[in-house]
Each structure stands twice: as structure tokens, then as C-alpha cells.
């Protein structure tokens, strides 16, 4: 796994760098940010949706279901105390030639994608702090 670095850019904006890619996270204006990019919480939703889309599309490609493509629409239900994501609502649109009797298999693939599996079996998070950064 490559190193992911995140640097504050001022305000709520952060620069995220990994494998030569760079993206910006921020909060919306109504949440006190400058809307310079998706929020960290939104990115978690993006991770889940993209993982499902990738895995299901790969399955359809392997099976030769080519009458259309895979699209995922997703939103988050937020919860309080503590403030967190309470649920993901995910709609997956499939190619027209996926047989009805293969939908259970498709669901299994979506539910076993690595991000979904991570959410289902929460990982440990080990945080260390260092003073004196400039």
C-alpha cells in the first residue's frame, strides 16, 4: 500500500496525495468551508459506490452482459451522537441482459466488495501524534 499524505491548506481544505494523484477535500460553504472539493465523509460514500460499481462492472464484463453499463447512485443518511454516517443508500443500475436469476449473485458481489467488507468488519485505527511539524 502506498503512503497517503494529507496536508491542511487553511480553513477546512486539505490536500490529499497518493501515487502521484492529488485531490482536495473541503466542506461546503454552509458547513463553513469553501467548497473546494468533496468532504471526507462524502469521499467515504464515493469509495463505497466506486468499489461496488467496479466490482459489479467487472462481473458483467466477465459474464458478457454488455447491453448497457453499470451505474451507481448513492446517498448517505447521517446520524448524531456521535455524528456519523448512519446508513448508505445505494441504487445499482445494470445492463439490460443480466438475467433475473443472476441478481442474487450480483448482490453478493456488491456486498462483498472490499469497501463494503471493511465497513461490515470495522478495521482498527492506530493514531500517533508528533510535535514540532512546520
Amino acid at each position, binding site marked *: 500500500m502506498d503512503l497517503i499524505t494529507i496536508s491542511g491548506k487553511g480553513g477546512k481544505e486539505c490536500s490529499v496525495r497518493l501515487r502521484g494523484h492529488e485531490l482536495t477535500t473541503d466542506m461546503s460553504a*454552509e*458547513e463553513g468551508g469553501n467548497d473546494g472539493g468533496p468532504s471526507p465523509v462524502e469521499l467515504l460514500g464515493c469509495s463505497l459506490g466506486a468499489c461496488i460499481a467496479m466490482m459489479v462492472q467487472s462481473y458483467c464484463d466477465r459474464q458478457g452482459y454488455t447491453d448497457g453499463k453499470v451505474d451507481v*447512485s*448513492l*446517498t448517505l*443518511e*447521517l*446520524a*448524531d451522537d456521535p*455524528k456519523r454516517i*448512519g*446508513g448508505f*443508500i445505494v*441504487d445499482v443500475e445494470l445492463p439490460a441482459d443480466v438475467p433475473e436469476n443472476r441478481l442474487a449473485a450480483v448482490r453478493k458481489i456488491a456486498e462483498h466488495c472490499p469497501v463494503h467488507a471493511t465497513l461490515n468488519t470495522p478495521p482498527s485505527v492506530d493514531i500517533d501524534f508528533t510535535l514540532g511539524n512546520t
Partner: protein
Amino acid sequence: MAQMEFGGKMMEIDEDGFIQDPEVWDQAVAADLAKTEGVEELSEDHWKVVNYLRGYYLEFNMAPMIRKLCKESGFKLKEIYELFPSGPAKGACKVAGLPKPTGCV
């Protein structure tokens, strides 16, 4: 708390524009609330969502989960967002005169 006029009536709204007293809601209020969400005219499909939310709220005193809204109204998630660009919580619930749902950001 701020006040604004909706449907010819002055009413209190929170910082996100949700009316504070669901009892004062009517169709004219909904039409004006919709304009604050960028929806100039409420179509039959908009009303289908709004009326479902309203009915659920009056029965259970809370907003339905999003998946329930989709199933009961017959709209896919994407279609709800096409109708209410701010989404089911921030957009549709606001137009239906519901309090801001818990955890809504």
C-alpha cells in the same frame, strides 16, 4: 430566529430554511419553499414525494428512511435528486414542511 414569508404567511425558519411549525404548512407554503430549493413549479411527481413525506410525518412524527421513501413513492434515488436537487432530507423534507431530519447536513 429568522422569519420569512411563505404562502403569504410570516413564519420562523431555522438556519437551513426549514420552517419551525409544521402545522402552518399548506400547498402555497410548499410552493414558496420549493422556490428556495430552485424548484420553480411543483409537478405531479414532486407532489407525490411531498405528500408521501407529509403523510408519513403526520402518522409517525418523523421523516421516513430514504429507502422507504424510494420504495413507497416508486422513485429511484437518482429520480428523487432530479426532483429535489438538495436531496430527500434537505430538499424534499423542507418543501414538505418537516423539521430538519436528524443528522441532516
